[in-house]
């Protein structure tokens, strides 16, 4: 092996080793915009931002990565409802939500562009607890309690 090739291999090895050592790097520019007094929960990442349940009056929030600021979600939150789980598609346009309202737990889909919120019925009936939406917004996975057992159910969305 020539001297040049040896140094090239050594350099590549060090470069790869350096990359390998890079673990979790906090996003110092964005994290202060999320943090609030109280308990935050249920983070869900899109390509364009993040949805999560913020403390206080327990609201679903949206942080837009392109601006670094929150954006409003008209028609999604209401003061008498308690969000339990939220998930967002890759484009940040379609949200899936489980929330508690008037003693009932319901599963909903929110269309951000249209500010539309619609309930999704489960057949047979069950109590939803956790929800995940696919990145393309076409499939929903729901954790449901039925007869004392936890099941996961998939639903195709229009």
């Amino acid at each position, binding site marked *: 092996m020539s001297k040049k090739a040896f140094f090239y291999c050594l350099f590549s090895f060090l470069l790869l080793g350096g990359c390998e050592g890079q673990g979790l790097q906090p*996003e110092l520019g964005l994290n202060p915009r999320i943090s609030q007094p109280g308990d935050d929960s249920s983070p*869900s990442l899109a*390509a364009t931002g*993040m949805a999560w349940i913020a403390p206080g009056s327990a609201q679903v929030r949206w942080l837009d990565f392109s601006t670094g600021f929150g954006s409003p979600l008209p028609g999604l939150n209401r003061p008498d409802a308690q969000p339990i789980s939220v998930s967002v598609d890759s484009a940040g346009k379609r949200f899936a939500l489980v929330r508690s309202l008037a003693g009932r737990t319901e599963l909903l889909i929110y269309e951000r562009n249209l500010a539309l919120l619609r309930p999704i019925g489960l057949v047979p009936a069950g109590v939803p607890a956790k929800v995940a939406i696919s990145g393309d917004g076409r499939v929903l*996975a*729901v954790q449901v309690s039925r007869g004392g057992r936890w099941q*996961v159910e*998939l639903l195709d969305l*229009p």
Partner: protein
Amino acid sequence: MIWQVRCKQFLLLTSLCLLNACGQRFEAPGIGDQQDPALSGNGRLLVTVAERSGRRAVRLVERSTGNELPLKGLNWGMPHRSPSLSWNGRYLAFILQRGERSEIVVFDRALARLRPLPLPGERSPQALTISPDGKRLGVQLLHRGQQDVELFNLPSHEPDLPPGAPLR
């Protein structure tokens, strides 16, 4: 323009109102409760935490066939929770319980390699989400009795992009 928006709104409303159908379930002998679902970007893969012989471990299923996909190289002796998938399912991030400690791990399915990602400080991960490209994590952390959500970059990850997506 307004007419088009109204039309789209009406079609969406109609179709969503019809969404009261039976869902698809992937149960199997020996599998107990299933929790913590997450989907790949195109919905092709479903990951859950399934109870098997009293242990809670991630279970990856291909939706079209219902087949369970092998996850060689994972530590099956310790409980798993809060799995999340990147767009094509290359990266599977989840929380691994090692005795009293919880730690974040990312399993790279392309390389069959499990990578622990220690958190700075005395913070315990409670839930997580990986971005569609696999280059970012959102983590719900417990620290001194308070739950916070924080974002982290994973600079060494190759992006896991949807087919046809431009490389940046």
